[in-house]
């Protein structure tokens, strides 16, 4: 199994599940110039992040170039039980995607 760009942790405490995720992605704004060539580095950033639990989309985030490199995402929701699976996936402006799933502890 290839390594995912998303590292995720899901913890249940007092009825609330907290998901923390760290995504590896350059998140290039498209405004930076290459120091050596002087040319603009093309934009390459995540546009959409989806978080799902039991087939339902709990979080739909529309990101842009303002989100920094290797973004950290954290969200909380209720109504889940320990052992449930949550999944996180992203799509970027070049059409690349990745996803991961983790169990709630």
């Amino acid at each position, binding site marked *: 199994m290839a390594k995912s760009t998303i*590292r995720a*942790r899901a913890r249940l405490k007092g009825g609330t599940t907290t998901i*923390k995720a*760290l995504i590896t992605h350059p998140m290039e704004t498209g405004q930076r110039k290459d*120091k050596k060539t002087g040319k603009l580095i093309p934009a390459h950033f995540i546009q959409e992040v989806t978080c799902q639990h039991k087939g339902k989309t709990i979080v739909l985030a529309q990101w842009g170039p303002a989100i920094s490199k290797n973004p*950290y995402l954290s969200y909380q929701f209720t109504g889940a039980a320990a052992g449930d699976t949550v999944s996180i996936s992203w799509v970027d402006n070049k059409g690349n995607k990745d996803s991961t799933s983790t169990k709630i502890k």
Partner: protein
Amino acid sequence: MKKILITLGAISIMGLAPLLATATPQSDLEEYRAYYFKKFPGIQLQDYGNGLYALDKARRFEWEASEEFPPYEEAVEIGEKLFKKYGLKTCFKKGGVGIKQNYPYFDKKTGKVRTLEKDIMACLKKKGIDTKKEKLKYKKGKFAAISAYMAYTSRGNKTNVVIPNDKRALAAYEAGKKFYYAKRGQLNFSCANCHVDSAGLMVRGNLLGPGLGQTTHWPAWRKKWAKKSAKKRGGESKPLDGLGTLQRRYGGCNKQVRAKPLKAQSEGYSNLEYFQTYMNNGIKLNGPAVRQ
């Protein structure tokens, strides 16, 4: 009367002298710990392995949050891959897994202290690896990653440095102890000045960690080293950036007091590591760990 008093005084001093002269490593260890237990009441022995995070709540909170996605995670994975790639397990007891608590040790054959890094390097050379070509240098990078992996497999094991009943071993210990308490550099500081006398105080923007427990979490991921390496590269951070061995830090500390640093894995630093780690016997290993 005066003569009697003088002779009594001389006798009592001479009577005490043998007591003072019989400081053993064990008594040194107890005295060292007693100082910290008195200075920081309530902090448990095992928590000293966490250094400044045992002393400061705010920094501890930040550290515990960062442990969710530890910056050294990828470095340990790289270290494991390299360990397997070079076939290092045949050089070590238990295949090199969970053995770091026994380091440093005194090698009776050579009469010198051996650190884990020394043994790793010896193993690489034994395997015929071209360490220059592979860029395997003592203090950082890929070499430190191998050490970090081995430290990671030893987490939870209690520090167990042995000083055998050998004059040379005791001499190495004493040399390390002397180094620790000796003032050096233009700023005229000893290791003890900062980490014993001033433990818990600030030096510039950093909080000084207590000397007790300071060896348990090496190799360490230092945020300063990570920042420095990334800056050199023009801002891009890479997985091995913050990693460094204990002796890399010794060099840095010496430079900071404007003393000429010794070479990594030199006898002076290895004896120092021997003394320092012995002081932490019984404290669980928790490397690699994030520090400032």
